[in-house]
């Protein structure tokens, strides 16, 4: 399908020429969407393509954001070091958490990600001296260029584009193919000689790394961090984005992020009951569109992409 190939490029072109004509509010809104789109796509890398029930992916987002912020705020280290340290710290956290999680499967895997993730949250929440505790950290001294919304917009868009390209390449590589094989059939994967624990751990770390990049981007846009970044509800929100867009599609989570972030900001100006709206979206989604928006379209317009059984079928892997 030729059209499907060019749609992302058209999107990118439109987003590149938009800033001069957009009000500031929408620049900010879109930059926020780019950040969360990267986060959701990194989650889907292991959730949709790896078949791993990662219930607390926001942890790596938070670790990336906090590491970056703390280094800028409390150490004289140069900006570039802090930028690199964010994702690296997130990947390292993913390595530690993943090392335990890949030993179990299915729901037990999910419960472990949740439990260990909450541990990280608790540390950040309690360690007030370093992290500011409940209040978080504000006024992160990012270089002055980022004070312009336009810069923040272009930087987040560029990083998002590059990261998506890299993740796409990885999914098309032998590593990605093998990852999907372990998702589809762990037992068979083992018997063709794949070390599934190691492979899953590697995928877990890669996903954590990209979530860490999203964390750094978040600070560049917001210039502040708070424990809510890695709260469990944040993790649930990005999981809903993946479901909404389509777990088996590459661009689905980014689309889901766009819809959810847009709605949460719009609805938030009219009512306090955003979670109610989110609940209704989730309900409709599960009942009407279990394969997500892009999954539904893929199924309708081509043989592949959507899958009849839905993702849950293999979740016990």
């Amino acid at each position, binding site marked *: 399908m030729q059209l499907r190939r060019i749609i992302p490029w058209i999107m990118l072109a439109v987003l590149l020429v938009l800033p001069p004509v957009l009000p500031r509010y929408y620049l900010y809104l879109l930059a926020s969407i780019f950040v969360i789109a990267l986060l959701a796509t990194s989650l889907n890398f292991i959730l949709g393509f790896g078949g791993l029930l990662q219930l607390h992916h926001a942890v790596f987002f938070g670790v990336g954001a906090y590491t970056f912020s703390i280094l800028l705020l409390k150490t004289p280290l140069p900006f570039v070091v802090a930028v690199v340290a964010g994702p690296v710290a997130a990947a390292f956290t993913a390595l530690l958490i993943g090392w335990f999680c890949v030993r179990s499967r299915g729901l037990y895997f999910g419960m472990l990600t949740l439990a260990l993730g909450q541990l990280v949250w608790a540390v950040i929440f309690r360690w007030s001296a370093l992290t500011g505790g409940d209040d978080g950290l504000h006024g992160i001294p990012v270089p002055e260029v980022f004070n312009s919304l336009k810069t923040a917009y272009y930087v987040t868009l560029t990083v998002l584009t590059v990261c998506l390209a890299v993740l796409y*390449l990885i999914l098309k590589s032998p590593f990605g193919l093998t990852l999907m094989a372990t998702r*589809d059939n762990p037992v068979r994967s083992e018997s063709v000689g794949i070390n599934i624990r190691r492979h899953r751990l590697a995928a877990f770390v890669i996903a954590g790394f990209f979530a860490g990049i999203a964390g750094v981007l978040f600070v560049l846009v917001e210039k502040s961090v708070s424990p809510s970044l890695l709260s469990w509800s944040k993790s649930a929100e990005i999981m809903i984005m993946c479901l909404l867009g389509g777990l088996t599609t590459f661009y689905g989570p980014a689309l889901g992020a766009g819809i959810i972030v847009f709605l949460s900001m719009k609805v938030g100006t009219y009512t306090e009951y955003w979670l109610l709206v989110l609940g209704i979206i989730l309900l409709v989604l599960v009942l009407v569109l279990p394969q997500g928006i892009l999954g539904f379209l893929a199924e309708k317009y081509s043989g592949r992409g959507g899958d009849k059984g839905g993702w849950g079928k293999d979740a016990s892997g």
Partner: protein
Amino acid sequence: MLQVKQVAKAFSGFQAIAKADLTVPKGQVVAVIGPNGAGKSTLFNLITGHLRPDKGHILFKGEEIGGLSAHDICRKGVARSFQLINIFPRLNTFENVQVAVLARYRKTNKLFTPARKLVVEETNDVLHKLGLIPYRERLCNSLSYGDQKVLELAIALGSQPEILLLDEPTAGMSPEETRTIVKLIKNLAQNEGLTILLTEHDMDLVFDVAERLMVLHQGQTIAEGSPEEVRRDKAVQNAYLGETG
């Protein structure tokens, strides 16, 4: 090539394998036969590392492999097919086999080379050998049952094993599909010199392809030898072949 010595395995009190012995000489086709529940599949799972033996030894080329993980055993040259269809349903036929070939060449960790450019020839070779080339791009959910069974075999061959374990390769197949599989097995044994260990219910097939038999009854090896010897064996006649023997 493969030796199973006094192996035992129990599942929470149930002795699935009590005392199994088996010798698979290089280049031969060996069949494990026995009634339902005799422990044939359990024995296979022990050899391929999906289960750990409680007791006994499993030697492959003289090296102990009992208790190793499934992927390690596969890398040593032991590949298997499964009794029930066990493929990668959301990958296409080519990719199903390619995964095994990639694993064989230790290329599953490559992150940035497009997979479609790697081990294409080796994968096509296997597909060609088994007549699956026409279905190359088909999502393997959409293949017929018989073709999925052949694909099952193709994935195992993708690992380029020295010994191939086939767990009921013709279970549920039509007579015509069965003939295809038998031809493939014979071809692999004679032309490729592959060592094959199989379990099968179809006695005609067993006596047709196997050069050596092992009879498993209630988890115990009760006879081992050439098809003629086994056919004449009193214990086997009582336990299994019954009046047909």
